């Protein structure tokens, strides 16, 4: 491309380009790098100095002999170039006369699922590469399935290396026929096939005389006409997830966010969810003056006609067509972390601008991405895809992912490491909490408590094995009973002989152990009792889970704080010795972590006080709470 004769006219035209995001699926063997290299080169995205660097890299690490190895252009990190692997999603940019393109380029190796899902999440279309000599392969099916799963509506079936089959029509037709039946099977309605040669540039930017039997557009021309998701979003009902409240003075209160769908104008009737308050749009405020109208995709600041409660995480929606709010869902989950999913554990869930705690049930099934079979599964490992039920700790505003990526897609974050461990797509809300009515009880928990003349509570002792939890809990219970309190002590070892006999010591089992103990403790507080529990309960997330089961103020976390070396020195039950010898697995403090409470209600430093002193302190604290 040379500089246009009239730069002013050219620039004016460039102002009105559209933006299309697409993902490329396929491996280096399919000619992907060559094709991308060709697209970048022909649209003048590779400069001479980059080409020179590429030539020198090709000689050093390349696999194409004396030819330029375009894969090296795509594999950005030196770690990758040296090892000849690609570890991540890379984004590339080029433009036609009509559109700017953002390409998510993902490598085709075993980490493929995670990378492709990431790249596909923002893509309008998928460029699916098939080698003309090999035809539709298992990986073609896998890529198509993942594209469909992530909501990509348009597939460009790019049949590559046509030069190696002498531009033979029957090779192309065979691929197309094969793909047609598969696309129908998984429900890809909108796809178009193009025969190309990346190496020679046939049908990439210009249609080629080598394939007169192909009457369709060249690849770039086709990419110029693929429908944009953004256009579909505009015609859906108005949704604005509130990101940030703009309050520079007492007189201005603006709600800032990016419009997920629909259009909005001043005076339009809206609802603030989840509260449901009804009001009108007052102004759409920008630095360049107020707008008369704003559409999906724009980042705006709006003000409302009435002073209603609205903050980050709320969603401003069309009054007449609001989305649902719920706290239980069915969703497809793609697991992206080395540590597998722990059913029952609390993860942060981020959906739109809402962040809540969510727990995932055991998957209903896992999906084999190669055969699309449903497999029984207890959990999901790295790159596992499954369908499971999810519960959140409060209502969230959502839509089905098929309708809205913005309000139907979510990520899960590990609460300890803060890593993004999964993504998910909501199918629908489960109305189970509405369908299963709890038995109404005439004798209430208040009645039980009054009869016993006490306020129920759970004293939750946590600490390392051998820290002194059971010893201190015993002393506390004796003192309470002596004062006429009604109590019950749930001890770790005893519970494991009965109620939790079926559970082992894996992370998942330890979580279930604590969940059950929490539920039993809650029932006992309903009966009016003061419950003492003595469990290592090493994970912060599970202790918080129990806290949330109980009414405010009834969960009292007692951290029995003994340094590991002292607990190990005491080793009353001889367990540390066994763990050190490798006879016990998953032993807290040795090969399994203990997450120290951040702000326990009561902190017992066993190095600074005796068990009796500790018991006195706890009874005093309990008295203060009556």
């Amino acid at each position, binding site marked *: *491309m*040379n*500089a*246009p004769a009239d*730069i002013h006219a050219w*620039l004016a035209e460039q*102002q*009105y*380009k*559209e*933006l299309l995001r697409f993902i490329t699926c396929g491996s280096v063997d399919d000619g992907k790098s060559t094709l991308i290299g060709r697209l970048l080169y022909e649209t*003048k*995205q590779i*400069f*001479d*100095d*980059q080409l020179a660097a590429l030539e020198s*890299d090709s000689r050093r690490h390349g696999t194409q002999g004396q030819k330029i190895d375009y894969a090296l252009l795509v594999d*950005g*990190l*030196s*770690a990758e*170039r040296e090892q000849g692997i690609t*570890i991540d999603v*890379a*984004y590339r*940019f080029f*433009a036609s006369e009509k559109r*700017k393109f953002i390409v998510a380029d993902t490598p085709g190796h075993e980490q493929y699922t995670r990378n492709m*899902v*990431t790249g596909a999440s*923002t893509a309008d279309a998928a460029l699916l590469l098939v080698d003309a000599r090999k035809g539709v392969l298992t990986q073609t099916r896998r890529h198509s399935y993942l594209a469909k799963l992530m909501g990509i509506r348009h597939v460009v079936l790019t049949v590559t290396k046509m030069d190696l089959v002498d531009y033979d029509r029957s090779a192309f037709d065979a691929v197309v026929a094969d793909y047609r039946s598969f696309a129908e099977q998984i429900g890809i309605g909108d796809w178009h096939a193009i025969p190309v040669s990346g190496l020679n540039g046939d049908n990439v930017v210009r249609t080629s005389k080598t394939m007169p039997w192909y009457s369709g557009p060249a690849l770039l021309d086709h990419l110029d006409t693929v429908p944009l998701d*953004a*256009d579909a979003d505009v015609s859906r009902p108005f949704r604005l997830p509130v*990101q*940030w409240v*703009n309050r*520079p003075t007492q007189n*201005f209160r603006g709600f*800032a*966010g*990016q419009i997920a769908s629909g259009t909005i104008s001043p005076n339009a009737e809206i609802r603030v969810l989840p509260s449901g308050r009804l009001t009108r749009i007052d102004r759409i*405020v*920008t*630095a*360049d003056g107020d707008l008369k109208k704003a559409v999906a*995709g*724009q*980042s705006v*600041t709006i003000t409302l006609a009435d002073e209603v409660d609205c903050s980050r995480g709320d969603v401003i929606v069309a009054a007449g067509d609001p989305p649902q709010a719920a706290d239980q869902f069915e969703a497809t989950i793609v697991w992206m972390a080395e540590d597998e999913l722990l059913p029952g554990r609390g993860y*942060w869930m981020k959906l*739109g*601008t809402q962040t809540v705690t969510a727990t995932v049930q055991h998957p209903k099934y896992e999906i084999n991405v190669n055969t699309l079979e449903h497999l029984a599964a207890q959990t999901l490992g790295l790159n596992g895809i499954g369908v499971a039920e999810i519960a959140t700790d409060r209502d969230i505003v959502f839509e089905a992912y098929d309708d809205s990526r913005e309000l139907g*897609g*979510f*990520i899960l974050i590990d609460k300890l490491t*803060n*890593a*993004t461990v999964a*993504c998910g797509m909501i199918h629908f809300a489960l109305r189970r909490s509405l369908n299963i009515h709890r038995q109404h009880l005439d004798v209430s928990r208040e009645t039980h408590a009054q009869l016993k003349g006490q306020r129920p509570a759970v004293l939750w002792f946590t600490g390392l094995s051998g820290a002194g939890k059971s010893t201190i809990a015993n002393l506390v219970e004796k003192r309470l009973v002596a004062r006429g309190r009604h109590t019950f002590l749930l001890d770790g070892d005893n519970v494991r002989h009965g109620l939790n006999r079926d559970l082992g010591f894996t992370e998942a089992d330890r979580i279930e152990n604590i969940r059950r103990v929490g539920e039993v403790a809650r029932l006992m507080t309903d009966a009016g009792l003061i419950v003492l529990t003595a469990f290592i309960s090493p994970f912060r997330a599970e202790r918080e889970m129990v806290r949330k089961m109980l009414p405010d103020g009834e969960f009292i976390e007692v951290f029995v704080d003994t340094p590991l070396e002292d607990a190990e020195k005491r080793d009353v039950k001889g367990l540390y010795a066994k763990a050190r010898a490798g006879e016990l697995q998953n032993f807290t403090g040795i090969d399994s972590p203990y997450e120290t409470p951040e702000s326990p209600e009561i902190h017992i430093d066993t190095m600074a006080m005796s068990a009796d002193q500790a018991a006195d302190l706890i009874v005093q604290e309990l008295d203060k709470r009556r």
Partner: protein
Amino acid sequence: MQQLTHLDRLEAESIHIMRETVAEAVKPVMLYSIGKDSAVMLHLAKKAFFPAPLPFPLLHVDTTWKFRDMYALRDKVAAEPGVELLVYKNPEAIERGINPFDHGPLHTDMWKTEGLKQALDKYAFDAAFGGARRDEEKSRAKERIFSFRDRNHRWDPKRQRPELWSLYNVRKNRGESMRVFPLSNWTELDVWQYVLREQIEIVPLYFAAERPTIERDGLILMVDDGRMRLEAGETVVSRKVRFRTLGCYPLSGAIESDAVTVEDIVAEMLASTTSERQGRAIDRDAGAASMEKKKQEGYF
């Protein structure tokens, strides 16, 4: 209905990223390097939070070797109402008189990488906006928009968090931080088009003018002040030049040009055959992996 153009969409995405950072970070800051990308980023920030003033300060990690025109624009921006500018200079680099002539790669390491880390630690910033774009360089192409850094500000390319949809995981533990790149998906051409559309003020050095220059190691360098050391045989020649990227003046290569407007610059760019980082001596230190290595050490 008027459709959103690609510039509208890039603008909306950048604003979304900035608001998300401000909503979730404890103490954000915007790295301000005075170049065109910084200018665009600052302009977007003003739009994102209008009518409120910027909810974070700007931070200039100074090397004392920038062009005089850059300092002039920086001070003008700092004087705007609602803008708070912090300037940080690594005291050790001042004391040791670190300069681009005697100290080679140490100059960038001490002033920029170390200076930046010291400044972020000093003010306890937990999120820092940077104007880097993915089209600039290979390792940038693989970096997240929200780039997690450990307690030592290090970037680990193999442990990046997956980034899906427009959902950004901003969670971190105390002492850890985020580098945030709102312009990740912009290209050099997008930036120029936006500068033109929004009439954003940029340093005059981007436009061609007669300037005192020398030629060294294949680069045209500008003699911006008396500190420029001339080597034997070098003579100062007036050339009509401009800069595609700006940094420390003894390290920034100029190109000969007649472009005096943004339109001219774009026209030249379209006809050009070299990338914009080509004029930067700083990228050449360690061959192909230069930027990746710097980033792992804590550079932007």
